[in-house]
């Protein structure tokens, strides 16, 4: 493999890896903040126990999210230095803003939240987790605004003297319609991920406690009662909170996804044509659900299952009378505009990642509907199938997030800065023009190093989260911390939390 392929693989691996962890952080921070708010407002201990229970898993996840994020900040310069030179004037601004506005806030206030349980007044301590939640979402906004510039460059001009893109309006950059659609879509994905995580774990525990209680009701009536109380009073509220957030974020995903698709048909027609394996320009083409065949030759693909009306609606909100451009026609058009070259993305990946992203939503949808049904009217479920469904549903939004980003990013190939059809013509760059001039062995070294370290840490991350989820809320977290007063130094008072 040459340095371009290696660099692309490295960026893909490190970014997909980072984005396994990020959505859970984005969604779980506000959910934990909501749980703690419920505790502060209602004074009910079960909300405190849930805050601690999910807070621990949030922190395990946050650590690896930070660790994998550090790499991203420097990888542009390391592997994509020509790209960095070309767009640094524009692209650097949201990155620096992300650091100044969001990273400082989330990291500092997370430290205060972790260690501040008995050091800060209750309301101030509650404010720290909300600031963390705002910080993680603000950072998502800035980085998505930066990415959206690569998909649909706005707010910049081309300076022929320096040969680079230069920022003309930070406002246009931050209100890029692509960013305004992608940000809520990614955040809704994060909320769905975290809500499925919470509802899945809550659902699994409800069933587990109820079944265990039934088994030991005669031998240990007190323990059975305790398990039932936890199922009803602790895990059911958590599950219901997760289910509500799942439904809201699911609707949000649907609406923002539709807006995004309409923008893509307009701004990046090649991405959408390849997502549909649409070879030739057609009026009212069918939406393809299943194809077989060699995808990188779209004429060789056999359409097995097609649905009418869907695609015109996705593209323009009409059921008929919509003409969509095909891959081959766009290729011819781009060759005329930008010179010879292959302007087609990997059709197999774009086609299937798009379907995987949408299809995997079925996991969360099934859990949401089943969860609402089995917990209706105050019921606490004990059906085995529901606990299985709870566990199976948890990974689906993670996979859908990955599929969505793979589609977005691989759909813009071969561009690293996709030309804006209504923007400045010279602001465009293909990936081979953006890559650093390294020996292949250099990049192979970093690719192997990151992959191995990430894989090892990923295994530990999964093991830790699983272990903490299976352990359940712990006894030492049963009671909220007592006094917040730190004046008594005569007796060494133990920290409420220490690493």
């Amino acid at each position, binding site marked *: 493999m040459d340095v371009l392929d290696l660099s692309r693989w490295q960026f893909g691996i490190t970014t997909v890896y980072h984005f396994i962890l990020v959505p859970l952080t984005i969604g779980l921070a506000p959910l934990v903040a909501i749980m703690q708010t419920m505790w502060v407002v209602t004074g009910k201990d079960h909300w405190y126990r849930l805050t601690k229970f999910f807070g621990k898993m949030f922190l*395990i996840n946050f*650590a*690896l999210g*930070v*660790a*994998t994020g*550090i*790499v991203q*900040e*420097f990888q*542009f*310069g*390391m*592997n994509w*230095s*020509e790209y*960095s*030179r070309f767009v*640094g*004037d*524009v692209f*650097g*601004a949201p*990155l*620096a*803003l992300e*650091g*100044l*506005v969001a*990273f*400082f806030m989330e*990291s*500092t*206030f*997370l*430290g*205060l939240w972790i*260690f501040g349980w008995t*050091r800060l007044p209750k309301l101030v301590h509650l404010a720290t987790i909300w600031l963390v939640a705002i910080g993680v979402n603000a950072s998502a906004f800035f980085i998505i605004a930066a990415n959206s510039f690569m998909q649909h460059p706005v707010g910049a001009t081309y*300076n022929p003297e320096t040969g680079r893109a*230069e*920022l*003309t309006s*930070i406002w246009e950059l931050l209100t890029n319609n692509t960013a305004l659609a992608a940000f809520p879509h990614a955040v809704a994905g994060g909320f769905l991920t975290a809500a499925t995580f919470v509802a899945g774990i809550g659902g699994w525990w409800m069933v587990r406690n109820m079944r265990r209680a039934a088994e030991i009701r005669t031998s240990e009536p007190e323990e059975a009662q305790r398990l039932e109380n936890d199922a009803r009073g602790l895990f059911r509220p958590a599950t219901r909170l997760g289910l509500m957030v799942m439904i809201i974020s699911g609707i949000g995903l649907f609406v923002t996804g539709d807006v995004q698709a309409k923008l893509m048909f307009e701004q990046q027609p090649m991405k959408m044509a390849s997502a549909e394996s649409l070879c030739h320009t057609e009026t009212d083409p069918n939406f393809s659900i299943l194809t077989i065949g060699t995808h990188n030759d779209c004429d060789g693909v056999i359409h097995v299952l097609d649905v009418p009306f869907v695609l015109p609606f996705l593209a323009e909100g009409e059921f008929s009378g919509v003409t969509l451009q095909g891959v081959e026609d766009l290729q011819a058009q781009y060759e005329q505009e930008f010179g010879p070259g292959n302007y087609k993305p990997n059709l197999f990946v774009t086609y299937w990642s798009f379907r995987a992203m949408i299809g995997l939503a079925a996991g969360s949808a099934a859990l949401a509907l089943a969860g609402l049904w089995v917990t209706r009217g105050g019921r606490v479920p004990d059906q085995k199938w529901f606990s299985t469904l709870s566990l199976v549903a948890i990974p689906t939004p993670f996979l859908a997030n990955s599929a969505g980003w793979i589609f977005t990013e691989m759909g813009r190939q071969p561009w690293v800065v996709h030309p804006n059809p209504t923007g400045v013509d010279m602001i465009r760059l293909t990936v081979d023009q953006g890559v650093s*001039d*390294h020996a292949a062995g*250099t990049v192979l*070294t970093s690719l192997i*190093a990151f992959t191995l*370290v990430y894989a090892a*840490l990923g295994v530990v991350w999964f093991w*830790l989260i699983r272990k903490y989820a299976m*352990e359940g809320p712990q006894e030492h977290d049963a009671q909220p911390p007592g006094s917040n007063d*730190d004046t008594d130094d005569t007796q*060494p008072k*133990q*920290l*409420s939390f*220490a*690493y």
Partner: protein
Amino acid sequence: MGLQEIWFILIAVLFTGYFVLEGFDFGVGMHFPVLGRGRTVEADTRRRVLLNTIGPVWDGNEVWLITAGGALFAAFPEWYATLFSGFYLPLLLILLALIVRVCAIEWRGKIDDPTWRRRCDWGIIFGSWVPAVLWGVAFANIVRGVAIDADKQYIGGFFDLLNPYALLGGATTALVFALHGAVFIALKTEGQVRTDAVAMSRKLAVPAVLVAGAFVVWTQLAYGKGWTIALVAVAGVSLLAVVALTAAAREGWAFVFTTVAIAATSVLLFASLFPNVMPSTLDPSWSLTIENASSSPYTLKVMTWAAAFMTPVVLAYQGWTYWVFRQRLSTDHIPHSIGLKIGSK
């Protein structure tokens, strides 16, 4: 003063802030093998005292680096691109060390098992030593100049970065951060840990003065300007003050002076560099300067507003965090481990 000068200063401020704040974070991790030696439960509690002196703040301290990287990208994209593609392998090592360190710090207490903790300790030690040495090597090379061609590309190899001046720079940051960390631990703890940290800082003070003194004098003689002699003096006097103050067990003032020494050294490096940002050893006209490496005036103006507005806010809440957790720690303050056992459910 033009916007390019302002941004050069801001980049210098961000990296100086990073070295001062992460300097003691690294130092704390570097002292794990000695100040936290032993395999007993007591030794584990001692290591937890060390780790918890930086517990609530290390993550926020590390963001100074991330923001410095972002600011470099925004204000001087050419510098960002040449530096990080040129110093590829050292940066890779720093990143791997930082990755391991983050996870080791955050996950250490999650499992109550001696083997688990020992492995995390190694992660913390590795993750503290490697960047402490390599940042010195990297910045000495930036000041010294590297083989940059007409296309702003670094064309030297990895081993060109390991020249005597740069290695002395690496030894300087390692020793000074270790001293800064020992003084910080003495300032943040009480009881036996504090006594041991004071003893450690006394041992480190003289070697640190000698090595760092040689480095700043070399920097001044080879790359300095007339006025930067003042910075050499400040760094030197501060380090000597640290020797005296650690001998007198005045760790509060000693910490002030290790901070001043690190800041003065960092400012000396940036001042020696100015107005270049990456001098070329091949041809001076190929050097990257604040003029030919910077962003457009509009980007610099926008970023100046953002920095002017956000920096005081960040300083205020980070300062407040240090205030909230100002209490000294001893082994008596460390609660029983609440980590899970490996064998349980």
